[in-house]
Each structure stands twice: as structure tokens, then as C-alpha cells.
């Protein structure tokens, strides 16, 4: 995590009210991420301990993990977009001269945003289909479509992040990997 992240991990580059909203969203996403992982750990550990120590499995354990992994994935893709952490093969891109890189970055961010908005739309269609089917989770007795509600939100927020990245690259002089991360900024502590 780089130093800016250390100082203020949720700092927004947007002006005024938009900036406040943006940094609030960033906070919510990171809390959801951390809470999702911790709940998943507690749930999985409790299930193992229950099974071996008390001979009693948690009947809802698997379903809870299924809910959590969707939460983590779709809160995470947007957070990763904000932090410029999605995996990419940047070797050829890095070898290009700066003006070309800038152009490419606008193109990459715009196309990625478009894909994310499309998937947001498709996933709403999917949720409608699951909702009309009326299926419920066998153990928790919750409607199945509930667990997918994060999906369009996550895609939408990710799309938004990439749109902002494209705009930011058009209006500013430098090249940005994400709304928050300037290209070539060296991470001091490497995360695994």
C-alpha cells in the first residue's frame, strides 16, 4: 500500500459533494471487504471446529460463504478499480511513449467501463429471472435473488470508476491508472 493510501486511503479526487460521496463509497467498500473476509473466516473456522470438536456442522455454513464470496468479489472489483489493482499485462503498454500510453489508457478505461455497465444491465436481467423463479436457499430460507443484489451494484461502481479514470486522463496532464493512482508511482510495501 502506497503512502497516500496510508495517509488517507479514501481520499477522493472529485470536487465538492461528489468527492464526499466518492470517499464515503470507498469507505463502505473497504468495510464490506474486510468484514466479508473476516465473517467468512469465522464461519469456515466455526464449521470445522463444530464438526470435529462438537460433531455438529453449521447447517447454513456453505450458503453463508456463498453469500459472502459474492459480496467480497463485487465490493472488491470496484475497490480494486479505484486502487488500480486489477491484474493486467502491461509490458507492451509500458514500452510505448507517454502520449500513446495516455491515449491507450483512455481507450482501456472507456472500454472497460462500457463492459462493466453492460454486465450491470445483464445482471439485473439475471436477477429478474431468478426472482421470478421464486427459488429460496434451502438452509437459510432466503430468496436466492437476494444474494445477487450486490452484483449489478459492483459492476456499476466499477464501471463508474473506469469512466472517471478515462475522464481524468482526458482532462489532466499526467497519466492515471485509476482515479487515485498515478502511473509509475512506486509502491513501497508490496502486498501479496
Amino acid at each position, binding site marked *: 500500500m502506497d503512502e497516500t493510501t496510508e495517509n488517507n486511503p479514501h481520499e477522493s479526487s472529485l470536487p465538492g459533494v461528489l468527492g464526499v460521496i466518492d470517499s464515503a463509497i470507498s469507505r463502505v467498500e473497504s468495510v464490506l471487504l*474486510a468484514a466479508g*473476509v473476516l465473517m467468512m473466516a469465522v464461519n469456515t473456522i466455526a464449521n*470445522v471446529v463444530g464438526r470435529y470438536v462438537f460433531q455438529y456442522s453449521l447447517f447454513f455454513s456453505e450458503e453463508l460463504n456463498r453469500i459472502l*464470496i459474492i459480496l467480497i468479489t463485487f465490493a472488491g472489483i470496484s475497490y480494486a478499480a479505484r486502487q488500480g489493482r486489477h*491484474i493486467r499485462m502491461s509490458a507492451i503498454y509500458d514500452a510505448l511513449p507517454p502520449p500513446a500510453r495516455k491515449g491507450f489508457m483512455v481507450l482501456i478505461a472507456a472500454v*472497460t467501463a462500457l463492459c462493466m455497465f453492460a454486465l450491470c444491465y445483464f445482471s439485473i436481467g439475471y436477477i429478474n429471472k431468478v426472482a421470478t423463479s421464486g427459488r429460496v436457499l434451502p438452509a437459510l430460507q432466503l430468496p436466492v435473488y437476494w444474494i445477487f443484489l450486490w452484483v449489478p451494484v459492483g459492476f456499476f461502481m466499477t464501471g463508474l470508476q473506469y469512466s472517471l479514470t478515462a475522464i481524468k486522463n482526458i482532462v489532466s496532464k499526467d497519466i492515471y491508472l485509476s482515479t487515485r493512482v498515478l502511473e509509475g508511482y512506486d509502491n513501497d510495501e508490496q502486498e501479496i
Partner: protein
Amino acid sequence: MATTIFIIMIVLLLLGFPMMIPLLVATFVGFMFMFGNLGQMDFMVQQMMAGIRPASLIAVPMFILAADIMTRGQSASRLIDMVMRFMGHIKGGLAVSTAAACTLFGAVSGSTQATVVAVGSPLRPRMLKAGYKDSFVLALIINASDIAFLIPPSIGMIIYGVISSTSISELFIAGIGPGLLLLLLFSAYSVAYATINNVPTEPKASWSERAQAVKNALWPLGFPVIIVGGIYGGIFSPTEAAAVCVLYAFVLEFLVFRSLNLPDIYRIAKSTGLITAVVFILVGAGAAFSWVISFAQVPQAILAAVGISEMGPKGVLAVISIAFFVGCMFVDPIVVILILVPIFAPVVETVGLDPVLVGVIITLQVAIGSATPPFGCDIFTAIAIFKRPYIDVIRGIFPFTVILFAVSVALIFFPQIALFLRDLAFR
């Protein structure tokens, strides 16, 4: 259709799009070819959701979390210290210790990058001071860290196991043999290197120092016992072993060593969540992609074009090896596994190959490819962590590539290297 999809995918990958995009766009184009309209696109989302659904995938975030806790704690330094006290004094001892510590930490964490950070970062300055050339040191760290791919737990193996419906437990156990063989050969090369270049040796540790180091490392040594012992003994599924590892790592670093405090938990969980999300969106996109190409019979078409049916089992293994090796020279291993495993699945079945053997060979190729220029992703990990230019990082890699290549060939002709332990445990 197949040609269009692959051209789109390769172009988008090479241009530097986030890796989920080539997979998603290729899937989208595949759907358009098949259905001709947007009416079926919710089915693409359904396939993505199905991709991240398998319960055994929960082992991935759990192992990442355990590794994340340990990398920030003391487990790695205690393991390094123990290995050093035993091997430091032989010729090339520091290099052999580095290789052994990478293997041991691989058995604890399952992540190549975590191994580079946790073992490579503290040991590189020591090796440089002892007189090893940086080109050798960097190449050794990258390649020895790749042993972590093969030694359980292995995230690549979990993903291979899930998408090919192969037992992850059996894959884990089968990875141990080739992993140790690599360690042995890397150690032999290290000794030869130190002898030729006349690198001075370290002072020999006394037995009381050794006893103390073993005592310090006893706690971290519990991880391989939980993972290998638990799975080998049929006590735990990989996901359960992962959960126990998280609990164990937590107890160790927070309660026993007290190297981390409660606010660290939040940061660690967030970082684990981020990595998990980045991997899982790829797994979901990969599942949708794999569904679309399987439905359109693309694998059969490609394999027939290569004429794979006349090659026999060894020929098929050779083709698989080359495909994964080349793939990983350019792209992240998980993406390569997600794209190529479904393509080769039909032929593996037709020729009657053991999917566990195929999995181990794939994992080995993934390890080699990731450390091979031009774009193996470990090279870039090393560049980022050690802040050395590309050319310095790749200079010493060739001898290691030769060793890895020799092991690949050996594995095709003597599958028992991998399957011996598996058969002992499960057959």
C-alpha cells in the same frame, strides 16, 4: 468463431486491458455468434455466478488470508533462521538455505509472491554481502519461490481442481514429489555455483544454537503438519485445512508471538479481500468463457487441427506442457489455467490421462513460464519488490530454466515422481 474470439482476446490482453476484459469480451462475442442477439446475456451472468459458486474455492481466500497474516508476522523469519543454522556452513549454504526456506514457506503460504516478499526480501541482502552475484540471487529467489506453486497449499492447483473436477487433496499430495526434486536440483546448482565462483562459506552453528532455532521455528512448522498431515491423513478437506491454517496463523501471530495487533486484522482482511476479488472475478469470467467455447465445440476443433489424437498420451502431455509454458511467459498463471484447462479437457479424457498428473504438470509449467522472459509475471514481482531493472532480474535465469525443463521432461516419462505419494495416500 474460434479464430475471431482468440484474436480479440490476444489483442486485448497484449494492449494491457485488465485481464477480466479479454475474457468477458471474448465470451460476449461467443454469445453473439451463438444466439445472435442480446436476449441471452443474463445467461452469461449466470455462468459467471456458477463459476465462483463451488464451495472448494473458499480455500483460496482462506489460504491468502493465512499467508497475509504470516507475511506480516514472524513465521517467515523464524523458518529462515532455522534452515540457516543447519545449512549455512556448507559450500553455497546460503543459497541452499534460501531455496529451502522458499520451499518451506511455500508449504506454509501457497503464494509465490508472498514467498518472494517473506523470504527473498530478508535473504537477498545477506547473499549479496556474502559475495553472490545479484543476477544469481534474483534468479534463485524467483525460481525457488516458484516451488511454492507445487508444494501444498497451491492456489493454482485449487483452481485447476475446481474447473477440471479433480480432487484437490490428491493434487496437493502429488505436488510434493516434484517440488522436492526441484529443491534438490536447485540446491545442487547452488553448491556448484558457489564452488565455481568460490563464494566464502558461513560459520558453522553450534548444536545449541540449532536447537534454539528449531524451538523458535516449531510453531510455524505446524502449518505443513496441518496441511499435509491433515489432507494426507484424510482428516481435512483443503478448505477445512485452509480454515484451520487461518485460525493457527491468527493464534500464532496475535497471541503467541504478539507480532501483530487488532487494527492489523482490518488491514489484512481488506488486503485479502482485494486479492480475492481480483482473482474471483477472473474465475467467474473464465467460467463463462469456458462454457461458451465448450458449447461451441471450440476445443475439439482446435485439438483436431493440431492432430492431437495421433500423438498418444506422452505427446499430449508434451503439447499441454508447451501450451501452458508459453502461455505463462505472457500472462498471469490463473488466467492461463482458466483459458487452457477447458480447451484440453476433452483430449485428457479421450487419451485416458490421469487428471492429477496433468494438474501437476500444468502447475510445473505455470511455475516455469512465470519465471521466464519476456513477460513471466514473477519477473515483474521481483522488479517491483527489489527495484532492479528488468535486464538484471532475467540475467541469471537460464540455468534454472534448464533445470525446470529437465524436471518437466522427467515428469512426463516418470509420472511416479508425482503419483508415488498420491498412490501411497489415496490408493
